[in-house]
Protein backbone atom coordinates (compact mmCIF):
# COMPACT_ATOMS: atom_id res chain seq x y z
CA UNK A 1 0.00 0.00 0.00
CA UNK A 2 0.89 3.66 -0.46
CA UNK A 3 -0.11 6.62 1.66
CA UNK A 4 -1.68 9.69 0.06
CA UNK A 5 -1.10 13.18 1.46
CA UNK A 6 -4.42 13.46 3.28
CA UNK A 7 -3.90 10.15 5.12
CA UNK A 8 -0.26 10.84 5.86
CA UNK A 9 -1.31 14.13 7.44
CA UNK A 10 -3.85 12.33 9.60
CA UNK A 11 -1.12 9.86 10.53
CA UNK A 12 1.30 12.47 11.78
CA UNK A 13 -1.45 14.41 13.54
CA UNK A 14 -2.56 11.28 15.37
CA UNK A 15 1.06 10.64 16.36
CA UNK A 16 1.27 14.18 17.72
CA UNK A 17 -1.90 13.59 19.73
CA UNK A 18 -0.59 10.39 21.24
CA UNK A 19 2.73 11.99 22.15
CA UNK A 20 0.96 14.82 23.92
CA UNK A 21 -1.35 12.40 25.76
CA UNK A 22 1.40 10.00 26.79
CA UNK A 23 4.15 12.37 27.82
CA UNK A 24 4.19 11.12 31.40
CA UNK A 25 4.32 7.46 30.39
CA UNK A 26 7.26 8.08 28.08
CA UNK A 27 9.07 10.00 30.78
CA UNK A 28 8.54 7.14 33.20
CA UNK A 29 9.93 4.58 30.79
CA UNK A 30 12.97 6.82 30.28
CA UNK A 31 13.36 7.32 34.03
CA UNK A 32 13.82 3.59 34.46
CA UNK A 33 16.64 3.17 31.97
CA UNK A 34 17.65 6.66 30.87
CA UNK A 35 17.39 10.28 31.94
CA UNK A 36 13.63 10.59 32.20
CA UNK A 37 13.03 13.14 29.47
CA UNK A 38 11.82 11.20 26.44
CA UNK A 39 8.19 12.23 26.98
CA UNK A 40 9.12 15.88 27.49
CA UNK A 41 11.38 15.75 24.46
CA UNK A 42 8.76 14.21 22.19
CA UNK A 43 6.09 16.58 23.48
CA UNK A 44 8.29 19.49 22.45
CA UNK A 45 8.71 17.85 19.06
CA UNK A 46 4.96 17.26 18.78
CA UNK A 47 4.17 20.89 19.49
CA UNK A 48 6.75 21.96 16.94
CA UNK A 49 5.13 19.72 14.29
CA UNK A 50 1.72 21.29 14.97
CA UNK A 51 3.23 24.75 14.82
CA UNK A 52 4.98 23.94 11.53
CA UNK A 53 1.77 22.58 9.93
CA UNK A 54 -0.14 25.65 11.10
CA UNK A 55 2.48 27.96 9.72
CA UNK A 56 2.46 26.24 6.35
CA UNK A 57 0.12 23.41 5.48
CA UNK A 58 2.29 20.80 3.71
CA UNK A 59 1.34 20.55 0.02
CA UNK A 60 2.84 17.17 -0.72
CA UNK A 61 4.24 14.11 1.03
CA UNK A 62 7.80 15.30 0.78
CA UNK A 63 6.96 18.60 2.48
CA UNK A 64 4.96 16.82 5.14
CA UNK A 65 7.80 14.52 6.12
CA UNK A 66 10.32 17.31 5.86
CA UNK A 67 8.37 19.60 8.18
CA UNK A 68 8.02 16.69 10.61
CA UNK A 69 11.75 16.03 10.41
CA UNK A 70 12.73 19.65 10.97
CA UNK A 71 10.40 20.02 13.94
CA UNK A 72 11.97 16.95 15.53
CA UNK A 73 15.52 17.97 14.74
CA UNK A 74 15.08 21.49 16.00
CA UNK A 75 12.98 21.03 19.08
CA UNK A 76 13.35 17.58 20.66
CA UNK A 77 16.70 18.22 22.38
CA UNK A 78 17.46 14.52 23.01
CA UNK A 79 18.89 11.69 20.93
CA UNK A 80 15.41 10.99 19.57
CA UNK A 81 15.51 14.37 17.79
CA UNK A 82 18.26 13.62 15.27
CA UNK A 83 16.99 10.03 15.07
CA UNK A 84 13.33 10.69 14.17
CA UNK A 85 14.59 13.72 12.27
CA UNK A 86 16.91 11.69 10.07
CA UNK A 87 14.28 9.01 9.48
CA UNK A 88 11.68 11.52 8.31
CA UNK A 89 14.20 13.56 6.36
CA UNK A 90 15.34 10.50 4.44
CA UNK A 91 11.70 9.58 3.84
CA UNK A 92 11.01 13.10 2.64
CA UNK A 93 13.81 12.84 0.10
CA UNK A 94 12.68 9.39 -1.03
CA UNK A 95 9.08 10.38 -1.77
CA UNK A 96 10.16 13.41 -3.74
CA UNK A 97 10.27 11.54 -7.02
CA UNK A 98 8.02 8.61 -6.29
CA UNK A 99 5.23 7.78 -3.83
CA UNK A 100 6.83 4.59 -2.55
CA UNK A 101 5.17 1.53 -1.11
CA UNK A 102 4.81 2.18 2.63
CA UNK A 103 7.03 -0.76 3.59
CA UNK A 104 9.82 0.49 1.38
CA UNK A 105 9.39 4.03 2.61
CA UNK A 106 9.59 3.00 6.26
CA UNK A 107 12.62 0.89 5.47
CA UNK A 108 14.31 4.04 4.24
CA UNK A 109 13.36 5.71 7.52
CA UNK A 110 14.68 2.71 9.46
CA UNK A 111 17.93 2.84 7.53
CA UNK A 112 18.16 6.52 8.47
CA UNK A 113 17.85 5.60 12.15
CA UNK A 114 20.58 3.01 11.78
CA UNK A 115 22.89 5.46 10.06
CA UNK A 116 22.34 8.28 12.55
CA UNK A 117 22.49 6.00 15.58
CA UNK A 118 25.31 3.81 14.27
CA UNK A 119 23.07 1.01 15.43
CA UNK A 120 20.96 -1.90 14.31
CA UNK A 121 18.18 -4.19 15.49
CA UNK A 122 18.69 -6.07 18.75
CA UNK A 123 20.23 -3.09 20.56
CA UNK A 124 17.02 -2.20 22.41
CA UNK A 125 16.16 1.00 20.61
CA UNK A 126 13.37 2.40 18.46
CA UNK A 127 14.90 0.46 15.58
CA UNK A 128 13.48 -2.69 17.12
CA UNK A 129 10.03 -1.32 16.36
CA UNK A 130 10.70 0.37 13.02
CA UNK A 131 12.35 -2.67 11.46
CA UNK A 132 9.62 -5.27 12.16
CA UNK A 133 6.92 -2.78 11.14
CA UNK A 134 8.71 -2.09 7.85
CA UNK A 135 9.16 -5.81 7.27
CA UNK A 136 5.51 -6.58 7.99
CA UNK A 137 4.28 -3.82 5.69
CA UNK A 138 6.43 -5.12 2.85
CA UNK A 139 4.55 -8.44 2.98
CA UNK A 140 1.18 -6.88 3.84
CA UNK A 141 1.08 -8.42 7.30
CA UNK A 142 1.08 -5.31 9.40
CA UNK A 143 -1.27 -5.11 12.37
CA UNK A 144 -1.29 -4.32 16.10
CA UNK A 145 0.22 -7.71 16.82
CA UNK A 146 3.41 -6.74 15.01
CA UNK A 147 3.79 -3.77 17.32
CA UNK A 148 2.91 -5.74 20.45
CA UNK A 149 5.44 -8.40 19.56
CA UNK A 150 8.09 -5.83 18.86
CA UNK A 151 7.55 -4.19 22.26
CA UNK A 152 7.55 -7.55 23.97
CA UNK A 153 10.81 -8.40 22.25
CA UNK A 154 12.41 -5.03 23.03
CA UNK A 155 11.50 -5.40 26.68
CA UNK A 156 13.60 -8.54 27.00
CA UNK A 157 16.64 -7.16 25.23
CA UNK A 158 19.79 -5.90 26.93
CA UNK A 159 20.56 -2.40 25.65
CA UNK A 160 23.81 -1.94 23.74
CA UNK A 161 23.18 1.58 22.36
CA UNK A 162 22.00 4.82 23.93
CA UNK A 163 22.07 5.70 27.62
CA UNK A 164 20.35 2.45 28.65
CA UNK A 165 23.42 0.55 27.45
CA UNK A 166 25.33 1.74 30.53
CA UNK A 167 22.92 -0.33 32.63
CA UNK A 168 23.87 -3.53 30.82
CA UNK A 169 21.87 -6.51 32.24
CA UNK A 170 19.77 -4.16 34.35
CA UNK A 171 18.22 -2.65 31.23
CA UNK A 172 16.40 -5.94 30.71
CA UNK A 173 12.70 -6.09 31.60
CA UNK A 174 12.03 -2.46 30.66
CA UNK A 175 10.43 -1.18 27.47
CA UNK A 176 12.75 1.20 25.65
CA UNK A 177 11.17 4.68 25.63
CA UNK A 178 12.02 5.32 21.98
CA UNK A 179 10.52 1.95 21.05
CA UNK A 180 7.33 3.00 22.85
CA UNK A 181 7.08 6.37 21.11
CA UNK A 182 7.66 4.56 17.83
CA UNK A 183 4.85 2.19 18.79
CA UNK A 184 2.59 5.27 19.07
CA UNK A 185 3.72 6.30 15.61
CA UNK A 186 2.75 2.98 14.09
CA UNK A 187 -0.44 2.60 16.12
CA UNK A 188 -1.44 5.92 14.58
CA UNK A 189 -0.71 4.38 11.21
CA UNK A 190 -2.99 1.41 11.96
CA UNK A 191 -5.77 3.80 12.94
CA UNK A 192 -5.64 5.71 9.68
CA UNK A 193 -5.18 2.54 7.63
CA UNK A 194 -8.28 1.03 9.19
CA UNK A 195 -10.30 4.18 8.55
Amino acid at each position, binding site marked *: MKLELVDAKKWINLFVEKLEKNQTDLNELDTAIG*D*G*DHGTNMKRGAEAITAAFEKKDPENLSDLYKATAFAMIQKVGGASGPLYGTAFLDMSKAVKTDNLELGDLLQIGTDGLKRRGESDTGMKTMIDVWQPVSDALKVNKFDQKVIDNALENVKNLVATKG*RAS*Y*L*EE*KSKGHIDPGAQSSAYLFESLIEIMGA
Partner: protein
Amino acid sequence: MKYGILIVSHSADIAKGVKALISQAAPDLSITIAGGTDENGIGSSLEKIQQAVDDNTGDEILAFYDLGSSKMNLEMLMEMTDRTIHKYDVALVEGAYIAATLAEVDSPLATIEDNLKSLKIK
Protein backbone atom coordinates in the same frame (compact mmCIF):
# COMPACT_ATOMS: atom_id res chain seq x y z
CA MET B 1 25.36 0.50 50.17
CA LYS B 2 24.38 3.80 48.51
CA TYR B 3 27.25 5.54 46.81
CA GLY B 4 27.63 9.28 46.61
CA ILE B 5 29.30 11.10 43.74
CA LEU B 6 31.93 13.81 44.14
CA ILE B 7 32.92 16.06 41.26
CA VAL B 8 36.16 18.04 41.48
CA SER B 9 36.78 20.41 38.62
CA HIS B 10 38.90 23.44 37.85
CA SER B 11 35.71 25.24 36.91
CA ALA B 12 32.66 25.92 39.06
CA ASP B 13 30.56 25.86 35.89
CA ILE B 14 31.80 22.45 34.80
CA ALA B 15 31.13 21.03 38.26
CA LYS B 16 27.64 22.52 38.33
CA GLY B 17 26.86 21.29 34.82
CA VAL B 18 28.08 17.76 35.47
CA LYS B 19 25.90 17.61 38.53
CA ALA B 20 22.85 18.71 36.55
CA LEU B 21 23.62 16.22 33.78
CA ILE B 22 24.10 13.19 35.99
CA SER B 23 21.30 14.10 38.40
CA GLN B 24 18.90 13.49 35.52
CA ALA B 25 20.00 9.89 35.30
CA ALA B 26 20.58 9.47 39.03
CA PRO B 27 18.08 11.59 40.95
CA ASP B 28 18.42 9.55 44.15
CA LEU B 29 22.17 9.89 44.62
CA SER B 30 23.99 12.39 46.76
CA ILE B 31 26.04 14.36 44.25
CA THR B 32 28.28 17.08 45.66
CA ILE B 33 30.69 19.30 43.82
CA ALA B 34 33.85 21.32 44.28
CA GLY B 35 34.53 23.57 41.31
CA GLY B 36 37.05 26.36 40.92
CA THR B 37 39.09 28.25 43.48
CA ASP B 38 37.79 29.85 46.67
CA GLU B 39 37.09 32.96 44.60
CA ASN B 40 35.41 30.89 41.87
CA GLY B 41 38.31 31.38 39.50
CA ILE B 42 39.75 28.54 37.42
CA GLY B 43 41.65 26.24 39.76
CA SER B 44 40.92 24.15 42.78
CA SER B 45 40.16 24.57 46.43
CA LEU B 46 40.84 22.06 49.16
CA GLU B 47 38.24 23.81 51.28
CA LYS B 48 35.56 23.30 48.64
CA ILE B 49 36.51 19.64 48.32
CA GLN B 50 36.36 19.28 52.09
CA GLN B 51 32.91 20.87 52.12
CA ALA B 52 31.68 18.69 49.26
CA VAL B 53 32.87 15.58 51.09
CA ASP B 54 31.22 16.72 54.32
CA ASP B 55 27.96 17.42 52.48
CA ASN B 56 27.93 14.10 50.65
CA THR B 57 25.49 11.71 52.27
CA GLY B 58 26.60 8.62 50.34
CA ASP B 59 27.87 5.67 52.37
CA GLU B 60 31.03 5.74 50.29
CA ILE B 61 32.06 8.32 47.73
CA LEU B 62 32.99 7.87 44.07
CA ALA B 63 35.20 10.79 43.10
CA PHE B 64 35.98 12.26 39.68
CA TYR B 65 38.32 15.10 38.76
CA ASP B 66 39.56 16.88 35.65
CA LEU B 67 43.23 17.95 35.73
CA GLY B 68 46.40 17.98 37.84
CA SER B 69 45.64 20.21 40.78
CA SER B 70 42.09 18.85 41.18
CA LYS B 71 43.65 15.44 41.52
CA MET B 72 46.34 16.50 43.97
CA ASN B 73 43.91 18.40 46.15
CA LEU B 74 41.54 15.46 46.11
CA GLU B 75 44.35 13.14 47.17
CA MET B 76 45.35 15.56 49.90
CA LEU B 77 41.80 15.52 51.21
CA MET B 78 41.71 11.74 51.03
CA GLU B 79 44.70 11.64 53.35
CA MET B 80 42.89 13.92 55.80
CA THR B 81 39.42 12.43 55.92
CA ASP B 82 38.10 9.18 57.37
CA ARG B 83 35.33 8.95 54.76
CA THR B 84 35.86 6.18 52.20
CA ILE B 85 36.54 7.83 48.87
CA HIS B 86 37.21 5.94 45.64
CA LYS B 87 39.05 8.14 43.16
CA TYR B 88 38.89 7.30 39.47
CA ASP B 89 41.44 8.36 36.85
CA VAL B 90 38.82 8.46 34.13
CA ALA B 91 37.16 10.96 31.81
CA LEU B 92 35.40 13.41 34.15
CA VAL B 93 32.01 13.94 32.51
CA GLU B 94 31.63 10.54 30.90
CA GLY B 95 32.97 8.62 33.88
CA ALA B 96 30.78 10.42 36.38
CA TYR B 97 27.75 9.84 34.13
CA ILE B 98 28.29 6.10 33.86
CA ALA B 99 29.12 5.66 37.54
CA ALA B 100 26.03 7.62 38.55
CA THR B 101 23.81 5.65 36.20
CA LEU B 102 25.03 2.39 37.66
CA ALA B 103 25.05 3.54 41.29
CA GLU B 104 21.48 4.77 40.90
CA VAL B 105 20.29 1.20 40.28
CA ASP B 106 22.36 -0.12 43.21
CA SER B 107 25.02 -1.81 41.11
CA PRO B 108 27.86 -3.25 43.17
CA LEU B 109 31.19 -1.43 43.18
CA ALA B 110 32.81 -4.17 41.11
CA THR B 111 30.32 -3.57 38.29
CA ILE B 112 30.80 0.18 38.44
CA GLU B 113 34.56 -0.12 38.39
CA ASP B 114 34.44 -2.64 35.61
CA ASN B 115 32.50 -0.17 33.49
CA LEU B 116 34.87 2.67 34.32
CA LYS B 117 37.90 0.72 33.17
CA SER B 118 37.49 1.59 29.52
CA LEU B 119 37.29 5.29 30.43
CA LYS B 120 40.67 5.37 32.17
CA ILE B 121 42.71 8.10 30.54
CA LYS B 122 44.84 9.50 33.33
